[in-house]
């Protein structure tokens, strides 16, 4: 249970970073923290104490397998996160070229 709570704390640390930092790259790092904590959580819910990789073999009697489905989910989620992250960084580079700064206080034309 401690692991799950630590995982959630990591999620909140990431959220704190996104909400308080003023630098675009630091906001991106905060988002990455949230992503990793979610992936960690998905892997943790599939883990079973003393489980082995779910490959059927005749030599092992009474095997205990870990749940393979969350692992497949995490792989998919990592690929999706890769796409989202590269999109965000591409926009960050474009913003730096247009504004010459990463500070979001100076990048605020849209208001109201």
């Amino acid at each position, binding site marked *: 249970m401690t692991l799950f709570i630590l995982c959630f704390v990591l*999620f909140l640390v990431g959220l704190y970073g*996104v909400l308080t930092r003023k630098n675009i790259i630091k906001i991106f790092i905060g988002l990455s923290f949230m992503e990793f904590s979610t992936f960690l959580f998905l892997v943790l819910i599939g883990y079973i104490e003393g489980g082995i990789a779910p490959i059927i073999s005749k030599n092992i009697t009474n095997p205990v397998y870990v749940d393979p489905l969350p692992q497949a989910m995490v792989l998919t989620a990592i690929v999706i996160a890769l796409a989202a992250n590269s999109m965000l960084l591409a926009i960050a580079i474009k913003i730096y070229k247009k504004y010459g700064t990463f500070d979001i206080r100076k990048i605020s034309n*849209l208001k109201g």
Partner: protein
Amino acid sequence: MSWLITLFVILPLAAAFLIPVIGKLIKGFQKTITSVVFLFLTVLSLFFLFDGNTEVYSYKIGGWEPVNGVPIAIYFVIDGLTIFMLSIINLIGFFSAFYAISYIRRFTAENNFYTLLCLMVGGMNGVVMTGDLFNLFVFLEIAVIASYALVAFGVEKHELEASFKYQVLGGIASLLILFGIGLIYWKTKTLNIADVSDILKYSNDRSFLLFTQIILIAGFGLKAAMIPFHAWLPDAHSSAPSPISAMLSGVLIKAIGIYCIIRLFFNMFIINHEISLVFIILGSLSMVLGVFLAVGQWDIKRLLAYHSISQMGYVIIGVGIGMMILVNNGNKSVAALAITGGLFHLINHAVFKSLLFLNAGAIEYKTGTRNLKELGGLFAYMPVTYSTSLGASMAISGIPPFNGFFSKLLIIIAAIKGRFYLVAFLAVIVSIITLASFMKFQKFSFFNKSSITEKPKINEVPFPMCFSMIVLAILCLGLSLLIFPGVRETVLTPVVDILMNTTDYSSAIKDI
């Protein structure tokens, strides 16, 4: 027969693949194929909508049959609610793509635009069709990442800033949704929505479920831009190219926000009192604050974007009141009335809001500005834009012959019959302020001659833009027919039945 439903995902994704490959070789390929694909899917979805039986079609990807009654494959499911959403998505998608034929010429990368549009529609079709939670997340991300890129399509200062805001808040929303799906999997060890619903029926871990529900409301609420989570919407929707604004405001916030909320909270979770209260409060807040923020805007597209928040509030209120009455074992006909009103307003809003965004695009296309203070006197130069936008403005503010009047009336009657007097009062007040705000839009863009003295070059927009606007304006008037008996039974009643009988969804899928 049931293999036909996979076309809703396959065709847009195939078009998205083919456009960058073939589009460079054949001139005009990208425009033709996008419009043809969307038109075909619209016809297919209308065929499913009007074929007269309420049977649930499903397709198991990979052909994996259930083992001991436990579903293994990823299911594509077509029931009343799904086909209702599919016809909205593909209809608005077709008109946006057709409108874009002229509008998008000013941008250089036409191939990229149509590829991203196809990806977005394919993702949304997948979201509304899938019967599997993780698959829902995957399709949601396809649609949303394509929309991030489309918001930044102009690559100017404003577009980039709006896209960055949208991506940060959208990223948080996606992670909250993934987290919620993980929590559900932890509890039930399955991802199939029907199967989850079966297992949750016998679960009594109330606090855990409430935590999951709150996480999911935060995630999907951010996607649907309900009021505490609305910060990204006005920027993103006003910065995108106009056909995309029409898609984002008309379809995307409904397909990946409202639809997911309705599907998960009616058909997967057991409906409960707290959640319905949260819906009514969020809906009222969105409705009231959205319209007050909209009144002061001078940018046409920002004004329309804030009205999207406000009008989505009506949908949430309708559905929330229905849920509250169902939970309290109240009068079932009042609950059905409220849900009918909410869903009817959903389709009406899709039509008139996309039309208004297309009008704003037409004004910007000819005059080069979106600022109401610099516009004026356009009614003589742009008669089609003027008349269609007048129709859409009357529809959104609830003037009787148009469709917006009937859906708002249904919601208000249901609120009074269900003794939600405050909500009914607020709905009437918001409707009046909406009218005021659209009178301002009409006056400053089409009549007031103060600023534009001589602009002889301004004339009507090209044919594809006119065609989309005229057909949508006719739909604004024609959709009022949905309320009359005879038409209502074929379109709205099956959808409402699915939400009224909350457990039928899971039993129907388990039986296949």
